């Protein structure tokens, strides 16, 4: 395909780009048709793309050709229709890769610039094929670039043009995959460490409404991905769950900080509604966790795939501990209000940990949890979660027969009682205590689990 360069050179920028797109389309079509494995665009072609579409300088001799704004808009339009008209998925994907896969060279900057504009335009005019390709791109690309793309879109739709939020809102029906990846990128972007990294309220509202409408949205990428561990390193998480959990847990403290700043700046309270939104979001996240056991079981992944990473949780708890320290220092007097918000954050942490563990999204023992939570202040629920449920036979609420961690009627029950991570065998919380009862018929699949009895336990909440 390299031989067409001569014919492209005399053309003006737009028609050259157009011509190249046309040839690229034919080239990829032929490649797909011939069934060459692996279908890969050769480097010559990639160079042509960089030269005639991204206009990266080929060498010092040739001056970089530039497009004016109008030409750029026309090019974007041509690309939009090019993807729209191509009916074959594989061809579209290869084309999108040829254009936008980062090559680690100078052209990447203009590549990202053009990509941001193209995706933004695709959202505006509802070009689903481009969004689908972008979703794949967001899965394969390093998270730093994913976050950049998300930033562009949030700027375009939430910050720059007021009232354009509904346009972005529609992407969840246009391309759920893109929407899911967008959420993951956004939750990675806004980590609530500073005011700039706090999500705009419009964005938050939008995400909450998406997940409320369809909790499965969060799992779309995960559900559509093959089980192979082909997830590139340092790409985005396969689900936005980790990011969402972080949002919900840090929000009470982060928004308190914002408020304080807002007050000191003398500005008005801008986000009175964030509290209930995060409360709803937190519930939605827990509900999504509850969907997991059956999905994981179906895929044969229960206990084998951690959707929440221990490392990121460790980061979260240390962040949290720091935030709590800060807030204590800042206020000096721990007012009832401050206290309540701190407890809310810890409640949410405890809930997220417990439910994630029970649903198989988090693979660790309670001891691991105790390790990462050791520096956190006291919270009843957290302690209950860290110590785990008390188990013994004569539970007055339930008939003895129904009470068995292996009871078939609730998959959650069995896995809650026995978090089974191959790498992390479970241990009784305090081995020094002699178990009063052992499970009569240990399932061969599970290690024998001594039951914790109603023993005095330091972590037990003082309720």
């Amino acid at each position, binding site marked *: 395909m390299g031989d067409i360069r001569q014919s492209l050179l005399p053309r003006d920028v737009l028609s050259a780009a157009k011509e190249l797109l046309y040839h690229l389309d034919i080239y990829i079509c032929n490649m797909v048709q011939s069934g060459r494995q692996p279908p890969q665009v050769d480097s010559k072609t990639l160079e042509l793309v960089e030269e005639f579409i991204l206009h990266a300088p080929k060498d010092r001799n040739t001056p970089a050709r530039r497009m004016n704004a109008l030409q750029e808009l026309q090019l974007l339009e041509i690309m939009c229709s090019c993807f729209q008209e191509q009916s074959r998925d594989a061809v579209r994907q290869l084309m999108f890769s040829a254009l936008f896969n980062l090559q680690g060279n100078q052209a990447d900057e203009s590549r990202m610039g053009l990509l941001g504009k193209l995706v933004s335009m695709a959202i505006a005019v509802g070009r689903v094929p481009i969004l689908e390709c972008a979703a794949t791109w967001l899965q394969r690309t390093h998270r730093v670039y994913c976050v950049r793309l998300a930033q562009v879109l949030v700027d375009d739709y939430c910050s720059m043009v007021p009232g354009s939020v509904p346009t972005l809102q529609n992407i969840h029906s246009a391309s759920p995959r893109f929407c899911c990846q967008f959420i993951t990128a956004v939750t990675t972007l806004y980590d609530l460490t500073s005011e700039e990294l706090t999500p705009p309220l419009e964005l938050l509202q939008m995400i909450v409404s998406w997940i409320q409408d369809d909790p499965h949205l969060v799992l779309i990428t995960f559900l559509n991905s093959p089980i192979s561990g082909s997830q590139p390193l340092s790409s985005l998480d396969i689900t936005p769950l980790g990011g969402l959990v972080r949002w919900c847990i840090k929000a009470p403290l982060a928004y308190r900080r914002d408020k304080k700043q807002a007050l000191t700046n003398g500005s008005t309270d801008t986000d009175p509604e964030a509290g*209930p939104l995060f*409360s*709803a979001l*937190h*519930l939605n996240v*827990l*509900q999504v966790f*509850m969907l997991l056991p059956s999905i994981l079981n179906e895929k044969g992944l229960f206990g084998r795939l951690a959707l929440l990473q221990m490392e990121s949780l460790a980061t979260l708890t240390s962040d949290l501990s720091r935030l709590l320290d800060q807030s204590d220092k800042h206020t000096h007097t721990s007012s009832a209000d401050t206290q309540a918000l701190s407890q*809310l954050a810890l*409640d*949410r942490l*405890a*809930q997220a940990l*417990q*439910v994630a*563990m*029970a*649903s198989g999204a988090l693979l660790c023992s309670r001891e691991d949890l105790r390790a990462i939570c050791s520096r956190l202040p006291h919270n*009843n*629920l957290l302690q*209950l*979660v860290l110590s*785990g*449920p*008390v*188990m*013994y036979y004569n*539970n*007055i*609420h*339930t*008939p003895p027969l*129904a*009470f068995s961690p292996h*009871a078939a*009627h*609730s998959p*959650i*029950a069995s896995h*809650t009682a026995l978090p089974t991570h191959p790498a992390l065998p479970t241990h009784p919380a305090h081995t020094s205590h002699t178990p009063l009862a052992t499970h009569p018929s240990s399932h061969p699949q599970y290690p024998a689990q001594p039951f914790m009895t*109603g023993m005095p336990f330091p972590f*037990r*909440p003082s*309720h």
Partner: protein
Amino acid sequence: MSAQKDCEFLVKRARELVSDDPCAAKAWLITARTLYPTDFNIQYEMYIIERNAERTASAGRLLYDMFLNFPDQPIVWREISVITAALRSDSQDKHTQFLRGLFETLPGRVQCEMLLKATEQCFNTLEKAEMLLLLLKRFPESVVQHGVNLGETLLEAEASENVETPVNCFRKLFVCDVLPLVINNMDMRLPASLMQKYMLKAAEFYIGYVTRGPSPDVQIQGSQEGGTLKSPTVSRGSQRYVIDGLSEKSSVVAEPWERLLDVLAVVGARCEWQGDKGQRNYADMLQRVKELCRYLPSLEGDTRSRCCSQVVICAALVLFRSAFFYVSAVQPALFQGVNALSSGPWILVEDLSSVYNDVELERGALKHAHKKRKLADGREKTMSSDDEEGLGKNRRHILVNKNEMPGWSETLESFRTARESWDLLHSHDSLETEFKKICATWKTDSWLWFRIFLTDMIIYQGQYRKALSSLHQMAAVQQPQPGQQSPSGQASLEHHRALIQQASCHYALGEYRMACEKLLDVVSGLIPPNQEPVKTLEDQTRVKTKTRKGNDLRLLPCTSKSVLPFCLQLMLACFKLRAFTDNRDDLSLGHVVVLLQYDWPQGEMLFLKAVDKICQQGSFQYENFFNYVTNIDMLEEFAYLRTPEGGRIQLELLPNQGMLIKNPSPALGVELNTLLLQGVQTMDRYPRPLLPQSPSCLPHLPSLPASRLVIPPILIWACHFTSRTPHSDTRNHQRSEGGFPSGHGEAGVTLWRELAQCASQILHK
């Protein structure tokens, strides 16, 4: 203990949060459930939050979980019973609808299981049945297993609970809900005998429902179209009908006759009845079984008994339905939901519109009729054989005022259809036996409305003796209750319905004295009308009736204004025959003259005949003359009779002439005689005030036309019979009668009653 405390702690936190932040509360509970998945209270709390927020889908999901995981929790069962109660209820309120929606979210298998288990836990038969019915309606496949059992349970419950009417909650459920499911389920093979048993159960229910009486504590008033129900309870202010144990809505049975026909069609098809292509309507049905009947004698064995059943069931249904329509027109007040205001009760009586006709003509006809009736009475025991004759030769006309009874043709048609069905049912021994079995099971003897039909039917057939005994029984049942007399006298009139029919029957049998005795009972209870008598009734039918010979019947409206003229006519008819015999009977003749004043000059011909008779006799003695004869034409005629031109007839017309001479007290008669007869004799045409009247005794008369004399006929009757008895009191009676007010004040009526009592005492001696 600790686990329980944990759970309590978790639930408590959720409860604290639920009002301010329901999402947080739910997050707590989700966490709690993952910690203690087998704790019931946590899941129940989750359910309660969703239920209280009326979120159908999530509440349904949680209920489903609880149902599976905690099948023994009483609270779950309490909840399920609340939901199943909502399913059975008529209520349209939001929460009930939510509960129903909640149930709908459950998977069918769970619904089925839930209903079955809820049914098991139910100890009340009715509730249990309703629950099972929910199951059967939702899951038709369960009908095979539970349908017949449920039906039998209901029928057993009905029997063991000693309910006094077939219109009860058990039967209603059986007939309206269970039966259609059972008989329409083609997966089930039911024996024909069972089908027929169920068919009869259904028929008994629907007939009982249609013919249910008005509730005792509500006076029938305003009813709505289409047989809407009325309530037995005034306190609730609604005019509705409720079957004990059921809600108001489920007490309603729409189009009962149509539903019955539906059941019959299915049963007929499944029992392989002859010529059954879906029963279109009741009239067709009767025709079909009539034809079928012709082949009956040639059939044998199973075919015969199947045919028999078909004929009896079909004909019986047509009979009861037509009889109901007839009686609901004739006695609407008997039924709840029949529009009682459209037309009042009607009485089937002998037609007397020919009473003013010539005596000779009529006597002949009547005598002939007598003979016939004697014959008929002799064969009363076997009514069916009598009927054949009755059908053939004894076809009688029933006259109705078409203006007063708008649905007259339908009513008469129903009467005819009912009679035909009856005849059909008695045309073969085997049919009769089966029909009698049905009647015995249903206790039709105790159906007042049906007895009314039967009585009218045997009157139609001319079996007056039998009709009388039936009427006697009915009169006993229909004795007026104290305090039930409505101001219009309508209630008492209805109670006198039987009496009037008795009088009519006695008359037809030639028992004039008994006829008059019954009339006395009737008239003493009448309150005289304030309107002019209806002449239109007579005018309309006169032309036709002239050709008839006293063999017709009439449907007489049971109102004072119609009953009174009828009573007068009946009395006239009684006296007429007596007055114009060859033997001299001045008293009867006088009474006839008095009675002829009513509806004058209708009976002018008879009056002239009476005058002829007086002329032939050369003398006439009638002491009540001036008390009761006020018709100027008649007075003139009598005045003329005394003149030489009139033949110098010897007239003794003053009350107790003999007594008055002896009695020094100035009784009214003396002056009247002198004053009036002279006046009349001189042919001066004095205006009415000069007519015989005492200001103290006849206070109303001047303002009333002569034809409105109401009570005198009874007095006449009393006189007539008392005067023949050589009793010492007789004279006194007559005297008091003579001076008795002929008006109809309160005191007057009371006195008349006393008098009537004395008279009947004498009669019975």
